[in-house]
């Protein structure tokens, strides 16, 4: 057995992959739109972090700051008819598909205007119109559901695909393996996006698995897999484009492992919310592998882009975020009847 391919190597080394992205051949208009989306996600999550710190948000929030390139890259080639599932850390997954910032904020505040009508909070997001089929906090809970959505897509015969985001920790749940097998044996159009941020809450992957490259599981299930730098928007976009295209053509499932790092603690706004393994040195280094900064640097080097343009974009984004927050904050709670009326379909 070739154990080398089981290790991430440099991909897990925060000293590597810190240079500006290679954007050769990319459409600059698209890149800027993607940059704006990454920035929006970051500012939204920073705002949520601030509001958590200010104790304005009671619901538990899992921030993905530092991981923005993944959702943005993966979503680029998805259509509203595709079926995307998330998990506990899914703000980015929702937003990158075009989910509304206000609906997210309102949801986090438990308001009726929330994307899940205030019934779910940060850990339960829904966005039917943009193809976001739902995120829930039971680890790996949505993975078999995504396989079923892919089965439905295959039955529909209209080249839609299913996508599910899962973590390196989720890969330890048995249902992932059952799901990989079903997807493989039934050749289903499902893209497993494994956001390998090396941690499952406070536990580093080295304490949980015998090697750190999660895609080895997919390969054992004969699923074509790729492991790439999750902080490189261009690589993530291209790889998922290829994979999604192959899936639409009946090529069966794919597994995309994207190596990244989260800047905040497992839950909440703090950076130091992980114990057991000292993250702080690594975190400092990983911040240099910032997916946003690396794209900005590349754009700047390529010309037609400068600090000024960036700040203008950033200000616009921040304004949008503030406005959304204010709207959300004043939105009403769900009616008391929601408690019983939303349990079954018929009671509507």
């Amino acid at each position, binding site marked *: 057995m070739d154990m080398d391919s089981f290790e991430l190597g440099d991909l897990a080394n925060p000293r590597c992959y810190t240079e500006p992205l290679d954007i050769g051949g990319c459409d600059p208009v698209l890149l800027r739109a993607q940059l704006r989306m990454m920035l929006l996600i970051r500012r939204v999550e920073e705002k949520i972090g601030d509001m958590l710190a200010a104790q304005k948000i009671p619901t538990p929030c899992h921030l993905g700051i530092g991981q923005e390139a993944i959702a943005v890259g993966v979503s680029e080639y998805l259509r509203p008819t595709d*079926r995307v*599932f998330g998990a506990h850390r899914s703000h980015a997954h929702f937003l990158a598909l075009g989910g509304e910032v206000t609906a997210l904020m309102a949801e986090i505040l438990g308001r009726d205007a*929330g994307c*899940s*009508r*205030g*019934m*779910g909070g940060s850990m*339960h997001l*829904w966005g*039917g119109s943009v193809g976001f*089929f*739902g995120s*829930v906090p*039971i680890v790996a*809970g*949505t*993975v*078999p*559901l*995504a*396989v*079923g*959505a*892919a*089965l*439905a*897509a295959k*039955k*529909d015969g209209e080249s839609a695909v*299913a996508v599910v985001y899962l973590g390196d920790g989720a890969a330890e749940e*048995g*249902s992932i393996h*059952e*799901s990989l*097998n*079903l997807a493989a*044996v039934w050749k289903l159009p499902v893209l497993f996006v494994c956001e390998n941020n090396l941690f499952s809450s406070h536990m580093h992957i080295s304490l949980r698995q015998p090697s750190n490259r999660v895609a080895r599981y997919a390969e054992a299930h004969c699923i074509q897999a790729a492991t790439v730098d999750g902080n490189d928007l261009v690589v993530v976009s291209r790889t998922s484009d290829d994979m999604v295209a192959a899936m639409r053509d009946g090529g069966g499932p794919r597994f995309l492992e994207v190596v990244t790092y989260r800047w905040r603690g497992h839950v909440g706004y703090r950076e130091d919310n992980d114990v057991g393994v000292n993250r702080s040195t690594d975190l400092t280094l990983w911040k240099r592998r910032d997916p946003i900064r690396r794209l900005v640097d590349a754009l700047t080097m390529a010309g037609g882009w400068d600090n000024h343009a960036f700040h203008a974009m950033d200000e616009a984004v921040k304004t949008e975020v503030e406005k959304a927050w204010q709207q959300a904050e004043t939105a009403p709670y*769900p009616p008391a009847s*929601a408690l019983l*009326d*939303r*349990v*079954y*379909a*018929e009671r*509507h």
Partner: protein
Amino acid sequence: MQSGIDMARVNYGSAIREAFVYLLDRYPKVFVIGQGLWAKWYVGNSMTDLDKFYGTERIMDSPVSELACTGAAVGASLCGYRPIVVHPRMDFMLYAMDAIVNQAAKWSHMVGGQAHPAVTIRGIINRGGEQGAQHSQALHAWFAHIPGLRVVMPATPQDARDLLIASVLCDDPVLYLDDRWLYELEEDLPPVVECPLEQEGSRVVSRGDDVTLVGAGYSAWLCREAAAALQQRSISAEVIDLRVLNPLDVSTVIQSVEKTGRLCVVDGSWSSCGLAGEVIARVSETLSPRKLLGAPVRITLPDAPAPTSGFLEKLYYPTLDTIMETVARLVIREGVHAKAVD
């Protein structure tokens, strides 16, 4: 029977099969997934040759992966399909609890009523025959405990057919729990008339005055048999078949006990936090104690896993005799002709 209605004699197992045929013929979004669907012996006669008629894409036999298969059905249901997951024994469903209880049961509520997993999960109760503790469980009480799930338990061939159809056409996740001990039971069935599951509930299946006998599934059948036999002893038992365990409707039971003053609930599973206790609790909390001529009684399994040895199996499962003796004692204890006071 009204003339003009086509009746056909079928047994419980083939009535289930008729429901599958009905659904698969008329509803292209229906498909079936589970273990043993391409085999001859897993699910009795309840699905014979469906794979031959509808193809292996709509009748999907599966790897031994209860959790992912159930979850996949939930996921497909969120995309407009109406899958039926088949678990040839309820015991196997213990692997699939997350998909059923954390996901399907809660999905609609969690997402604000904007999406509904219209999935049917068929769990077969398959006891006896010296199969032992891991191949004999009837866990309907668990599912009846969980809001968001609907639970049906057919006791007759007609219900076996019609409740399966209603389950699959319902927009909510439904546990459809049939019992292998009923598969040979025969009945003349009229043509199918679709009925919304939400409108189905418990039903008085035979009238009587002295005692109310309540059961679901195979236990409801036992109750009917017991009532017939009790007739010979001049005890007139009213029998209620619960049919739908979640949301549980006990209005018929309450009306009946108001009349009879005596309640005996039979359930082929365990007592503690089980279905029989729930029925007794609902009656007790609803009726004034003065309406009761005696303390209600339940007949359930002993507090033990299923044994294998046939000798012990005979002691383990409630029988017609158990019910008849219990009812006779209940009625005689308080005098057959006592009447409830208000």
